[in-house]
């Protein structure tokens, strides 16, 4: 009996009150995909707005609400929790040979907090004086003055922060306490390492944004003045505190995606991972250095010259561990017998798109360039390359890789391959145009544009439609598979980590007997790599 058929309780309650890490992973998956679609729709609506010059399709206020809600959902409800709560929950205990996480009930509570936060944010759209319009960054002083329902929206994000902290705490404890006998640190799969690095950032960085958001609420309700210039407060300090969390948060987004890619590449190259320890350490190095670079979001906001220089230098440094990973992946491919199945195809796309995102990030790390492109579409293009081309593409690859294991069904590989065509073409039409438009001077968060940017906007909007249809095809494939898919084998891809040694889908207790680990991961049959 698999975890799908057998639970502590029957029926829907068996899912809503489950403490099984696999079922909780599925709960997250379903809620997040739904939210993702809402946010994609908002993205497409924004692109529709930019199709016409005059008159605008939606009012400027509506556009402001669109990008705020789009950003908040994508960031706080999809890419920050995304991979660690869905795949981390489902796979971490299995990968390290445990029956569940350390605190199963806390794990369920995390999901409920996530849902509560989501509902509060949704409530903020329809109550009070209208949906928040500050952008996902809630910058003071505007977030203190805006007449819209900022306090409630911010509170929802605060609640989700709790969920994130508890998940991180749970994973750290799980990894420390529940590894199977013989599963030493260096025998852990690299996905687990990346979750470990991520969990530490979640635990250490999230409280800072928590207090910052609480202060925004206190400002709006009581007017305490700490960010309000008319009372001697300094909005710049808001930015500091916000980015002290939110920059590390971008590594919360990307690390688990990198971890998933690190699992996929050796499996389809049939070759052990190149530089295991370097990849593991680079996760920790990214977690550490990533906590020191928040100032690069603020180069133009009036920090001292010295701070600018230091933050710029650190920003260049943080590229090193990321590049180490990219080199290790390519070195793993070298002389491997590469089999381009859908997960691999998406993983390779990840490397390509993420590299563009990373390199444009470096451009902005240089002070001179930054002062030109700050707050333009160049930034918007850049972060979609890293977050969509990176994290979301990693999410897609992970879903393709682990879906058969999680659901027990196989999907249509041809359609999965074909869905990448519109995704890839549409993606680059949309976001490369944004890079170009930004370079030409198109500012971000404007509901309309000057005539000279019109061609670029048209191309971008067409790209958005193509991209969105690709995304629909991609997920549609899984929905069909759930109902009509053939039964999946235990190990369809020839993976060697523990999750491939348990039945598909995994049984309730994961292992009938806890395995004893005797060797490092990623040892493939030597014949297979001929």
């Amino acid at each position, binding site marked *: *009996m*698999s975890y799908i058929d057998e639970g*502590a309780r029957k029926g829907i309650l068996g899912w809503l009150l489950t*403490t*099984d890490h696999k079922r909780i992973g599925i709960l997250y998956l379903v809620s997040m995909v739904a939210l993702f679609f809402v946010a994609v729709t908002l993205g497409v609506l924004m692109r529709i707005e930019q199709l016409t010059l005059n008159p605008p399709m939606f009012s400027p206020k509506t556009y402001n609400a669109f990008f705020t809600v789009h950003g908040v959902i994508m960031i706080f409800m999809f890419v920050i929790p995304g991979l660690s709560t869905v795949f981390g929950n489902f796979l971490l205990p299995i990968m390290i040979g445990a*029956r*569940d996480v*350390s*605190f*199963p009930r*806390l794990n369920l509570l995390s999901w409920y907090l996530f849902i509560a936060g989501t509902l509060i944010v949704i409530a903020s759209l329809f109550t009070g004086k209208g949906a928040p319009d500050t952008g996902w960054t809630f910058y003071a002083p505007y977030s203190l003055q805006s007449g819209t329902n900022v306090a409630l929206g911010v509170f929802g994000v605060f609640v989700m922060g709790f969920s994130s*902290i508890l998940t*991180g*705490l*749970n994973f*750290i*404890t799980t990894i*420390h*306490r*529940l590894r199977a006998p013989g599963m030493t640190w260096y025998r852990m799969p690299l996905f687990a390492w990346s979750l470990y690095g991520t969990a530490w950032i979640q*635990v*250490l960085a*999230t*409280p*800072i944004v*928590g*207090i*910052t958001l*609480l*202060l925004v609420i*206190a400002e709006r309700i*009581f*007017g*305490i*003045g*700490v960010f309000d210039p008319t*009372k*001697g*407060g*300094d909005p710049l*300090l808001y930015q*500091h*505190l916000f980015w002290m969390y939110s920059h590390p948060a971008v590594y919360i987004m990307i690390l688990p995606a990198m971890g998933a890619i690190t699992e996929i590449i050796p499996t389809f190259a049939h070759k052990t991972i190149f530089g295991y320890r370097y990849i593991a350490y680079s996760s920790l190095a990214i977690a550490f250095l990533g906590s020191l670079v928040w100032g690069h979001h603020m180069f133009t906001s009036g920090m001292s010259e010295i701070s600018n220089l230091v933050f710029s230098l650190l920003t260049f440094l943080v590229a090193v561990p990321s590049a180490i990973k990219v080199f290790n992946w390519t070195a793993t491919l070298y002389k491997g017998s590469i089999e381009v199945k859908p997960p691999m195809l998406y993983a390779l796309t990840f490397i390509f798109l993420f590299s563009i995102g990373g390199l444009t990030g470096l451009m902005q790390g240089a002070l001179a360039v930054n002062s030109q492109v700050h707050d333009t579409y160049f930034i918007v293009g850049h972060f979609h390359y890293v977050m969509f081309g990176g994290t979301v593409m990693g999410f897609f690859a992970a879903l393709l890789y682990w879906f058969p294991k999680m659901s027990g069904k196989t999907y249509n590989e041809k359609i999965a391959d074909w869905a990448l065509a519109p995704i890839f073409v549409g993606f680059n039409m949309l976001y490369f145009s944004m890079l170009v438009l930004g370079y030409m001077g198109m500012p971000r968060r404007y509901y309309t544009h000057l005539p000279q940017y019109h061609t670029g906007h048209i191309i971008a909007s067409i790209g958005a439609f193509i991209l969105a249809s690709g995304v629909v095809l991609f997920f549609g494939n899984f929905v069909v598979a759930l109902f009509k898919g053939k039964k999946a084998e235990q190990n369809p891809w020839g993976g060697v980590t523990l999750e491939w040694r348990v*039945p598909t889908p995994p*049984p*309730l*207790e994961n292992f*009938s*007997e*806890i395995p004893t680990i005797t060797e490092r991961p990623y040892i493939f049959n030597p014949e297979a790599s001929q």
Partner: protein
Amino acid sequence: MNSPVPAQPPIHAESHKDYEGGKLGMWLFLFTEILLFGGLFILYSAYRARYPLEFHEGGQHLNVIIGITNTVVLLTSSLTVALSIGAIRRGNRRMAIQCLSGTITLGAIFLVNKYIEWSGEIRHGLYPNSPILRKRPPGDQIFFGLYYSMTGLHGLHVLAGISLLSVMLALVIRKKITRDDFNKLENAGLYWHLVDVIWIFLLPLLYLAA
């Protein structure tokens, strides 16, 4: 799949308890609490460097006597929590119950003092956005903004601690926490110590800043 008898007791049976893990989780949680206040401490140091005179003056408006009384109250309450854990370890349930009740009472006294203190200041018109404060220089407004945020957030933590310890008290009374299984109480005690330690920092930063 028909599985043979599991080698490890199944976790869902709730028979399996990992005390070390529980403690590790609790310490991680305490880190996050410290960092939560850390954000306020960062703001405090930035603004204190900017408005040293006003912070000095602002501190003079606070009631040092109540501040110090509350410090003694909280320190004593930390002691009683520690004693209650020691008592349960020795199997002395009665004393554990007495000590825990003592802690909860002391926590409540702290909050009452806080109430008296705040209402005094509010009567003098020293509260965020008050007409009196709005006429004063910016540094003063920031000082009181921070004063209320920091002591307010701390007060919420005292309240959370009291609730947590009340649950523990109920568990001790119902013999759910015993000499062989007192991990929960120990973790709750850790939380209470944290609340205490944070106050130890708030006292000099706010009251003794003058």
